[in-house]
Protein backbone atom coordinates (compact mmCIF):
# COMPACT_ATOMS: atom_id res chain seq x y z
CA UNK A 1 0.00 0.00 0.00
CA UNK A 2 1.40 3.41 -0.88
CA UNK A 3 1.35 6.47 1.34
CA UNK A 4 -1.38 7.92 -0.83
CA UNK A 5 -3.57 4.84 -0.42
CA UNK A 6 -3.00 4.93 3.33
CA UNK A 7 -4.08 8.57 3.44
CA UNK A 8 -7.19 7.73 1.46
CA UNK A 9 -8.03 4.90 3.88
CA UNK A 10 -7.61 7.27 6.82
CA UNK A 11 -9.82 9.82 5.11
CA UNK A 12 -12.65 7.31 4.66
CA UNK A 13 -12.47 6.37 8.31
CA UNK A 14 -12.62 10.01 9.38
CA UNK A 15 -15.61 10.62 7.11
CA UNK A 16 -17.45 7.68 8.71
CA UNK A 17 -17.00 9.31 12.11
CA UNK A 18 -18.60 12.53 10.89
CA UNK A 19 -21.03 13.05 13.78
CA UNK A 20 -18.47 12.59 16.55
CA UNK A 21 -15.99 15.24 17.70
CA UNK A 22 -12.81 15.34 15.63
CA UNK A 23 -10.73 14.08 18.59
CA UNK A 24 -12.53 10.73 18.57
CA UNK A 25 -11.75 10.26 14.89
CA UNK A 26 -8.13 11.10 15.60
CA UNK A 27 -8.03 8.60 18.50
CA UNK A 28 -9.42 5.80 16.36
CA UNK A 29 -7.06 6.67 13.51
CA UNK A 30 -4.07 6.71 15.87
CA UNK A 31 -4.92 3.34 17.38
CA UNK A 32 -5.06 1.88 13.88
CA UNK A 33 -1.66 3.36 13.01
CA UNK A 34 -0.17 2.04 16.26
CA UNK A 35 -1.43 -1.46 15.56
CA UNK A 36 0.12 -1.33 12.08
CA UNK A 37 3.53 0.11 12.98
CA UNK A 38 4.02 -2.20 15.97
CA UNK A 39 2.51 -5.27 14.31
CA UNK A 40 0.28 -5.71 17.40
CA UNK A 41 -3.40 -5.98 16.49
CA UNK A 42 -4.39 -5.65 20.18
CA UNK A 43 -3.31 -2.00 20.12
CA UNK A 44 -6.21 -1.05 17.84
CA UNK A 45 -8.51 -1.11 20.90
CA UNK A 46 -6.33 0.38 23.64
CA UNK A 47 -7.52 2.92 26.25
CA UNK A 48 -6.74 6.60 25.53
CA UNK A 49 -4.68 6.95 28.74
CA UNK A 50 -2.27 4.17 27.72
CA UNK A 51 1.38 5.35 27.85
CA UNK A 52 3.07 5.23 24.45
CA UNK A 53 6.59 4.71 25.84
CA UNK A 54 7.74 2.13 28.37
CA UNK A 55 5.33 -0.44 29.75
CA UNK A 56 2.37 0.80 27.70
CA UNK A 57 2.82 0.57 23.94
CA UNK A 58 6.62 0.41 24.20
CA UNK A 59 7.31 2.76 21.28
CA UNK A 60 10.99 2.86 20.27
CA UNK A 61 12.95 4.89 17.77
CA UNK A 62 11.81 2.81 14.80
CA UNK A 63 8.11 2.41 15.64
CA UNK A 64 7.97 6.00 16.94
CA UNK A 65 9.35 7.33 13.67
CA UNK A 66 6.90 5.23 11.66
CA UNK A 67 4.06 6.52 13.85
CA UNK A 68 4.99 10.17 13.31
CA UNK A 69 5.48 9.69 9.56
CA UNK A 70 2.02 8.11 9.35
CA UNK A 71 0.52 10.88 11.48
CA UNK A 72 1.91 13.42 9.06
CA UNK A 73 0.47 11.52 6.07
CA UNK A 74 -2.98 11.02 7.59
CA UNK A 75 -3.53 14.21 9.60
CA UNK A 76 -1.08 16.68 8.06
CA UNK A 77 0.48 17.46 11.45
CA UNK A 78 4.28 17.39 11.83
CA UNK A 79 4.57 16.48 15.51
CA UNK A 80 8.38 16.25 15.51
CA UNK A 81 8.75 19.79 14.17
CA UNK A 82 6.36 21.33 16.71
CA UNK A 83 7.20 19.39 19.85
CA UNK A 84 10.93 19.37 20.65
CA UNK A 85 10.58 17.17 23.73
CA UNK A 86 7.96 14.92 22.13
CA UNK A 87 5.90 15.38 25.31
CA UNK A 88 2.79 14.92 23.17
CA UNK A 89 3.78 11.25 22.92
CA UNK A 90 3.07 10.67 26.65
CA UNK A 91 -0.22 8.88 26.02
CA UNK A 92 -2.56 8.08 23.17
CA UNK A 93 -4.92 10.81 24.45
CA UNK A 94 -2.20 13.49 24.67
CA UNK A 95 -1.06 12.76 21.12
CA UNK A 96 -4.66 12.84 19.86
CA UNK A 97 -5.23 16.19 21.60
CA UNK A 98 -2.01 17.62 20.15
CA UNK A 99 -3.07 16.57 16.64
CA UNK A 100 -6.70 17.70 17.03
CA UNK A 101 -5.60 21.21 18.02
CA UNK A 102 -3.53 21.46 14.85
CA UNK A 103 -5.75 19.73 12.28
CA UNK A 104 -5.77 21.72 9.05
CA UNK A 105 -9.35 22.96 8.66
Amino acid at each position, binding site marked *: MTAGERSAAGGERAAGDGERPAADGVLAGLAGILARVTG*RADLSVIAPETALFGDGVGLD*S*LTGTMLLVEVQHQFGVDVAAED*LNLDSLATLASLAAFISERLPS
Partner: protein
Amino acid sequence: MIKCVVWDIDNTLLAGTYLESGEQPPEPDPELLGVLRELGRRGIVHALASKNPPEAADYVATVTGVPFAAAECGWGRKSDALRRIIDDLGLGADAVAFVDDDLMERAEVAAALPEVLVLLPEDAAEAPSWPEFQPAVLTAEGRRRGEMYAQRRRRQQEARAFGGSRDDFLRRAGTQVLIAPAGLGEVPRLHELSVRTHQFNTGGDPVGEDELAGLLGSARHRLVTARLRDRFGDDGIVGGVLIDRGEANDSGVPPGPGAARSWTVPLLMMSCRALGRGVLDALLAALCQRAAADGAAELRMPCLVTDRNLPLRLALAAAGFRAGAAPRPGEPALFARPLDGKLPGLPDWATVADWP
Protein backbone atom coordinates in the same frame (compact mmCIF):
# COMPACT_ATOMS: atom_id res chain seq x y z
CA MET B 1 30.44 10.48 -0.34
CA ILE B 2 28.42 7.74 -2.03
CA LYS B 3 27.32 4.88 0.27
CA CYS B 4 24.94 3.08 -2.08
CA VAL B 5 24.67 2.63 -5.86
CA VAL B 6 21.23 1.80 -7.26
CA TRP B 7 21.49 -0.04 -10.56
CA ASP B 8 19.11 -0.50 -13.45
CA ILE B 9 19.16 -4.05 -14.86
CA ASP B 10 18.23 -4.08 -18.57
CA ASN B 11 21.11 -2.91 -20.80
CA THR B 12 22.92 -1.67 -17.73
CA LEU B 13 24.03 -4.47 -15.40
CA LEU B 14 22.94 -7.05 -17.99
CA ALA B 15 24.23 -6.92 -21.55
CA GLY B 16 20.68 -7.13 -22.92
CA THR B 17 17.03 -7.19 -21.83
CA TYR B 18 15.94 -9.75 -19.24
CA LEU B 19 12.38 -10.35 -20.50
CA GLU B 20 13.20 -10.36 -24.22
CA SER B 21 15.95 -12.90 -24.10
CA GLY B 22 13.97 -16.14 -24.24
CA GLU B 23 15.35 -19.18 -22.44
CA GLN B 24 18.73 -17.80 -21.41
CA PRO B 25 18.81 -14.31 -19.85
CA PRO B 26 21.75 -12.09 -20.84
CA GLU B 27 25.14 -12.23 -19.14
CA PRO B 28 26.25 -9.38 -16.86
CA ASP B 29 28.22 -6.55 -18.44
CA PRO B 30 31.83 -7.53 -17.68
CA GLU B 31 33.07 -3.99 -17.06
CA LEU B 32 30.26 -3.11 -14.65
CA LEU B 33 30.68 -6.45 -12.91
CA GLY B 34 34.22 -5.33 -12.05
CA VAL B 35 32.84 -2.02 -10.77
CA LEU B 36 30.27 -3.83 -8.59
CA ARG B 37 32.99 -5.92 -6.97
CA GLU B 38 35.45 -3.07 -6.50
CA LEU B 39 32.89 -0.74 -4.90
CA GLY B 40 31.72 -3.62 -2.69
CA ARG B 41 35.29 -4.07 -1.43
CA ARG B 42 35.23 -0.38 -0.45
CA GLY B 43 32.13 -0.87 1.70
CA ILE B 44 29.74 0.76 -0.79
CA VAL B 45 26.50 -1.20 -1.02
CA HIS B 46 24.48 -2.01 -4.12
CA ALA B 47 20.75 -2.01 -4.81
CA LEU B 48 18.54 -2.69 -7.83
CA ALA B 49 15.71 -0.65 -9.34
CA SER B 50 14.26 -2.30 -12.40
CA LYS B 51 11.11 -2.44 -14.51
CA ASN B 52 11.08 -6.21 -14.41
CA PRO B 53 9.51 -9.00 -12.37
CA PRO B 54 11.28 -9.76 -9.06
CA GLU B 55 12.91 -12.86 -10.60
CA ALA B 56 15.16 -10.51 -12.58
CA ALA B 57 16.74 -9.27 -9.33
CA ASP B 58 17.32 -12.84 -8.15
CA TYR B 59 18.90 -13.68 -11.49
CA VAL B 60 21.25 -10.66 -11.32
CA ALA B 61 22.26 -11.50 -7.75
CA THR B 62 23.03 -15.07 -8.84
CA VAL B 63 25.02 -14.31 -11.99
CA THR B 64 27.01 -11.49 -10.43
CA GLY B 65 27.55 -13.17 -7.05
CA VAL B 66 27.24 -9.70 -5.50
CA PRO B 67 24.95 -9.06 -2.50
CA PHE B 68 22.24 -6.46 -3.12
CA ALA B 69 21.01 -4.58 -0.05
CA ALA B 70 17.63 -3.80 -1.60
CA ALA B 71 15.79 -4.67 -4.80
CA GLU B 72 12.83 -2.73 -6.18
CA CYS B 73 11.24 -4.44 -9.16
CA GLY B 74 8.01 -3.15 -10.68
CA TRP B 75 6.56 -0.75 -13.17
CA GLY B 76 6.21 2.36 -11.04
CA ARG B 77 8.39 5.45 -11.13
CA LYS B 78 12.07 4.85 -10.53
CA SER B 79 12.19 7.87 -8.24
CA ASP B 80 9.63 6.15 -5.98
CA ALA B 81 11.74 3.00 -6.04
CA LEU B 82 14.78 5.06 -5.04
CA ARG B 83 12.85 6.75 -2.23
CA ARG B 84 11.91 3.34 -0.82
CA ILE B 85 15.52 2.16 -1.05
CA ILE B 86 16.76 5.36 0.60
CA ASP B 87 14.22 4.98 3.44
CA ASP B 88 14.86 1.28 3.77
CA LEU B 89 18.60 1.68 4.10
CA GLY B 90 18.35 4.80 6.23
CA LEU B 91 20.52 6.87 3.87
CA GLY B 92 20.48 10.46 2.75
CA ALA B 93 19.66 11.01 -0.94
CA ASP B 94 23.05 12.69 -1.36
CA ALA B 95 24.75 9.40 -0.43
CA VAL B 96 23.12 7.56 -3.34
CA ALA B 97 24.12 7.16 -7.00
CA PHE B 98 21.72 5.89 -9.67
CA VAL B 99 22.91 4.21 -12.87
CA ASP B 100 20.56 3.73 -15.83
CA ASP B 101 21.05 3.53 -19.60
CA ASP B 102 17.62 5.07 -20.29
CA LEU B 103 17.57 8.85 -20.72
CA MET B 104 13.94 9.19 -19.57
CA GLU B 105 14.59 7.24 -16.35
CA ARG B 106 17.66 9.33 -15.58
CA ALA B 107 15.74 12.56 -16.20
CA GLU B 108 12.80 11.45 -14.04
CA VAL B 109 15.07 10.57 -11.10
CA ALA B 110 17.20 13.71 -11.50
CA ALA B 111 14.07 15.90 -11.44
CA ALA B 112 12.43 14.16 -8.48
CA LEU B 113 15.58 13.58 -6.41
CA PRO B 114 18.07 16.32 -7.30
CA GLU B 115 20.50 15.20 -4.57
CA VAL B 116 20.99 11.75 -6.11
CA LEU B 117 24.06 11.38 -8.32
CA VAL B 118 22.63 10.22 -11.68
CA LEU B 119 25.04 8.35 -13.96
CA LEU B 120 25.22 6.73 -17.38
CA PRO B 121 26.60 3.17 -17.41
CA GLU B 122 29.74 4.58 -19.12
CA ASP B 123 30.16 7.02 -16.20
CA ALA B 124 29.74 4.23 -13.69
CA ALA B 125 32.57 2.30 -15.33
CA GLU B 126 34.93 5.14 -14.35
CA ALA B 127 33.33 5.86 -10.97
CA PRO B 128 35.81 3.87 -8.86
CA SER B 129 38.47 6.51 -9.61
CA TRP B 130 36.25 9.41 -8.49
CA PRO B 131 36.62 10.88 -4.98
CA GLU B 132 32.89 10.41 -4.23
CA PHE B 133 33.48 6.66 -4.40
CA GLN B 134 36.53 6.56 -2.15
CA PRO B 135 35.62 6.24 1.53
CA ALA B 136 38.01 8.13 3.80
CA VAL B 137 38.16 5.34 6.33
CA LEU B 138 37.49 1.71 5.77
CA THR B 139 37.40 -0.95 8.46
CA ALA B 140 36.51 -4.63 8.61
CA GLU B 141 32.91 -3.65 9.37
CA GLY B 142 32.93 -1.30 6.41
CA ARG B 143 34.16 -3.95 4.00
CA ARG B 144 31.53 -6.43 5.17
CA ARG B 145 28.73 -3.90 4.85
CA GLY B 146 27.30 -5.36 1.64
CA GLU B 147 26.98 -8.83 3.13
CA MET B 148 25.44 -7.40 6.29
CA TYR B 149 22.75 -5.60 4.30
CA ALA B 150 21.95 -8.90 2.59
CA GLN B 151 21.57 -10.52 6.03
CA ARG B 152 19.31 -7.62 6.89
CA ARG B 153 17.01 -8.41 4.00
CA ARG B 154 16.65 -11.98 5.26
CA ARG B 155 15.99 -10.72 8.81
CA GLN B 156 13.36 -8.26 7.60
CA GLN B 157 11.60 -10.88 5.48
CA GLU B 158 11.32 -13.13 8.52
CA ALA B 159 10.26 -10.23 10.77
CA ARG B 160 7.45 -9.31 8.37
CA ALA B 161 6.20 -12.88 8.39
CA PHE B 162 6.50 -13.16 12.21
CA GLY B 163 3.58 -10.97 13.28
CA GLY B 164 4.42 -10.72 17.00
CA SER B 165 5.88 -7.73 18.83
CA ARG B 166 9.29 -6.29 18.06
CA ASP B 167 10.69 -7.52 21.38
CA ASP B 168 9.44 -11.04 20.72
CA PHE B 169 11.09 -10.99 17.30
CA LEU B 170 14.39 -9.73 18.75
CA ARG B 171 14.36 -12.65 21.21
CA ARG B 172 13.39 -15.13 18.50
CA ALA B 173 16.23 -13.85 16.31
CA GLY B 174 18.67 -14.53 19.14
CA THR B 175 19.63 -10.85 19.39
CA GLN B 176 22.66 -10.12 21.58
CA VAL B 177 23.87 -6.60 22.40
CA LEU B 178 27.17 -6.39 24.25
CA ILE B 179 28.15 -3.07 25.80
CA ALA B 180 31.79 -2.91 26.85
CA PRO B 181 34.68 -0.50 27.35
CA ALA B 182 36.58 0.29 24.14
CA GLY B 183 40.19 -0.68 23.56
CA LEU B 184 42.80 0.77 21.24
CA GLY B 185 41.91 -1.77 18.52
CA GLU B 186 38.39 -0.38 18.33
CA VAL B 187 39.42 3.25 17.83
CA PRO B 188 39.35 3.08 13.99
CA ARG B 189 35.80 1.73 14.01
CA LEU B 190 34.68 4.41 16.49
CA HIS B 191 36.25 7.06 14.27
CA GLU B 192 34.47 5.56 11.27
CA LEU B 193 31.13 5.67 13.14
CA SER B 194 31.74 9.34 13.96
CA VAL B 195 32.25 10.02 10.23
CA ARG B 196 29.44 7.88 8.85
CA THR B 197 26.56 8.24 11.31
CA HIS B 198 24.14 11.14 10.99
CA GLN B 199 20.68 9.97 12.00
CA PHE B 200 22.01 8.49 15.23
CA ASN B 201 24.70 10.94 16.24
CA THR B 202 24.24 13.46 19.05
CA GLY B 203 27.33 15.45 18.11
CA GLY B 204 27.66 15.94 14.40
CA ASP B 205 31.43 16.40 14.04
CA PRO B 206 33.85 13.56 13.22
CA VAL B 207 36.24 12.67 16.05
CA GLY B 208 39.82 11.84 15.03
CA GLU B 209 41.58 8.60 15.96
CA ASP B 210 44.25 10.46 17.95
CA GLU B 211 41.63 12.24 20.01
CA LEU B 212 39.75 8.99 20.66
CA ALA B 213 42.95 7.17 21.61
CA GLY B 214 43.81 10.03 24.00
CA LEU B 215 40.44 9.72 25.71
CA LEU B 216 41.10 6.02 26.44
CA GLY B 217 43.76 7.02 28.96
CA SER B 218 41.69 9.74 30.64
CA ALA B 219 40.45 9.10 34.19
CA ARG B 220 37.62 11.52 33.58
CA HIS B 221 36.37 9.96 30.34
CA ARG B 222 35.03 6.59 29.32
CA LEU B 223 34.72 5.25 25.79
CA VAL B 224 32.23 2.44 25.29
CA THR B 225 31.25 0.25 22.32
CA ALA B 226 28.06 -1.64 21.53
CA ARG B 227 28.29 -4.87 19.53
CA LEU B 228 25.30 -6.50 17.87
CA ARG B 229 24.71 -10.01 16.59
CA ASP B 230 21.89 -12.45 16.06
CA ARG B 231 21.41 -15.73 14.24
CA PHE B 232 21.22 -13.93 10.88
CA GLY B 233 24.70 -12.48 11.27
CA ASP B 234 27.26 -10.57 13.27
CA ASP B 235 27.14 -6.79 12.77
CA GLY B 236 30.23 -6.11 14.89
CA ILE B 237 30.51 -2.72 16.56
CA VAL B 238 27.39 -0.70 15.73
CA GLY B 239 27.52 1.92 18.46
CA GLY B 240 29.87 4.07 20.50
CA VAL B 241 29.52 6.40 23.46
CA LEU B 242 31.88 8.95 24.94
CA ILE B 243 31.25 9.66 28.62
CA ASP B 244 32.52 12.59 30.64
CA ARG B 245 32.29 11.74 34.35
CA GLY B 246 32.73 15.35 35.39
CA GLU B 247 35.39 17.69 36.73
CA ALA B 248 38.23 16.25 38.77
CA ASN B 249 38.51 17.59 42.32
CA ASP B 250 41.57 19.33 43.80
CA SER B 251 43.55 16.12 44.12
CA GLY B 252 43.02 15.38 40.40
CA VAL B 253 40.75 12.41 41.03
CA PRO B 254 37.20 12.38 39.68
CA PRO B 255 34.72 12.59 42.56
CA GLY B 256 33.70 9.17 43.82
CA PRO B 257 30.25 7.75 44.54
CA GLY B 258 28.10 10.03 46.63
CA ALA B 259 29.48 13.32 45.34
CA ALA B 260 26.79 15.49 43.75
CA ARG B 261 27.61 15.68 40.09
CA SER B 262 26.39 14.59 36.70
CA TRP B 263 27.56 12.47 33.83
CA THR B 264 27.67 14.11 30.42
CA VAL B 265 27.63 12.24 27.14
CA PRO B 266 29.31 14.50 24.56
CA LEU B 267 28.85 11.91 21.83
CA LEU B 268 26.51 8.98 21.31
CA MET B 269 26.44 7.34 17.89
CA MET B 270 24.88 4.28 16.32
CA SER B 271 24.93 2.80 12.85
CA CYS B 272 21.54 3.15 11.17
CA ARG B 273 21.54 -0.55 10.27
CA ALA B 274 21.01 -1.27 13.99
CA LEU B 275 17.73 0.70 13.92
CA GLY B 276 14.86 -1.24 15.48
CA ARG B 277 17.12 -3.90 16.99
CA GLY B 278 17.13 -2.79 20.60
CA VAL B 279 20.65 -1.32 20.66
CA LEU B 280 19.76 2.27 21.52
CA ASP B 281 17.38 1.24 24.32
CA ALA B 282 20.13 -0.96 25.74
CA LEU B 283 22.78 1.76 25.51
CA LEU B 284 20.61 4.40 27.16
CA ALA B 285 19.52 2.02 29.93
CA ALA B 286 23.13 0.94 30.57
CA LEU B 287 24.29 4.58 30.69
CA CYS B 288 21.58 5.54 33.19
CA GLN B 289 22.37 2.56 35.42
CA ARG B 290 26.15 3.06 35.30
CA ALA B 291 25.89 6.80 35.92
CA ALA B 292 23.63 6.21 38.92
CA ALA B 293 26.02 3.54 40.27
CA ASP B 294 28.89 6.01 39.84
CA GLY B 295 27.02 8.47 42.07
CA ALA B 296 25.82 10.85 39.37
CA ALA B 297 22.53 12.65 40.05
CA GLU B 298 21.82 13.46 36.42
CA LEU B 299 22.72 12.20 32.94
CA ARG B 300 23.13 14.98 30.38
CA MET B 301 23.20 14.55 26.65
CA PRO B 302 23.64 17.55 24.37
CA CYS B 303 22.00 16.64 21.06
CA LEU B 304 21.52 18.58 17.85
CA VAL B 305 17.87 18.79 16.85
CA THR B 306 17.47 18.00 13.16
CA ASP B 307 14.82 16.45 10.94
CA ARG B 308 17.06 13.49 10.36
CA ASN B 309 17.77 12.54 13.95
CA LEU B 310 14.12 12.18 14.97
CA PRO B 311 14.61 8.42 15.69
CA LEU B 312 17.40 9.29 18.13
CA ARG B 313 15.30 11.93 19.88
CA LEU B 314 12.43 9.44 20.13
CA ALA B 315 14.75 7.00 21.89
CA LEU B 316 15.84 9.79 24.25
CA ALA B 317 12.21 10.69 25.01
CA ALA B 318 11.39 7.00 25.56
CA ALA B 319 14.25 6.74 28.07
CA GLY B 320 12.94 9.77 30.00
CA PHE B 321 15.26 12.49 28.68
CA ARG B 322 13.87 16.01 28.27
CA ALA B 323 15.41 19.16 26.80
CA GLY B 324 15.25 22.18 29.06
CA ALA B 325 14.72 24.83 26.40
CA ALA B 326 14.57 25.15 22.64
CA PRO B 327 18.16 25.49 21.40
CA ARG B 328 19.50 28.34 19.32
CA PRO B 329 19.80 27.39 15.63
CA GLY B 330 22.86 25.25 15.00
CA GLU B 331 23.45 24.56 18.69
CA PRO B 332 22.56 21.36 20.48
CA ALA B 333 19.66 21.12 22.91
CA LEU B 334 20.64 19.86 26.35
CA PHE B 335 18.66 16.69 26.96
CA ALA B 336 18.90 15.51 30.56
CA ARG B 337 17.45 12.88 32.84
CA PRO B 338 17.49 12.76 36.66
CA LEU B 339 18.82 9.47 38.01
CA ASP B 340 16.66 9.17 41.10
CA GLY B 341 13.50 7.12 40.87
CA LYS B 342 12.92 4.36 38.36
CA LEU B 343 15.67 3.94 35.76
CA PRO B 344 15.08 2.43 32.32
CA GLY B 345 15.44 -1.34 32.49
CA LEU B 346 18.17 -3.14 30.55
CA PRO B 347 16.51 -5.32 27.87
CA ASP B 348 17.05 -9.03 28.41
CA TRP B 349 19.05 -9.33 25.15
CA ALA B 350 21.70 -6.89 26.37
CA THR B 351 24.81 -7.60 28.43
CA VAL B 352 26.96 -4.92 30.01
CA ALA B 353 30.59 -5.85 30.61
CA ASP B 354 32.29 -4.38 33.65
CA TRP B 355 33.95 -1.12 32.91
CA PRO B 356 36.31 0.65 35.26
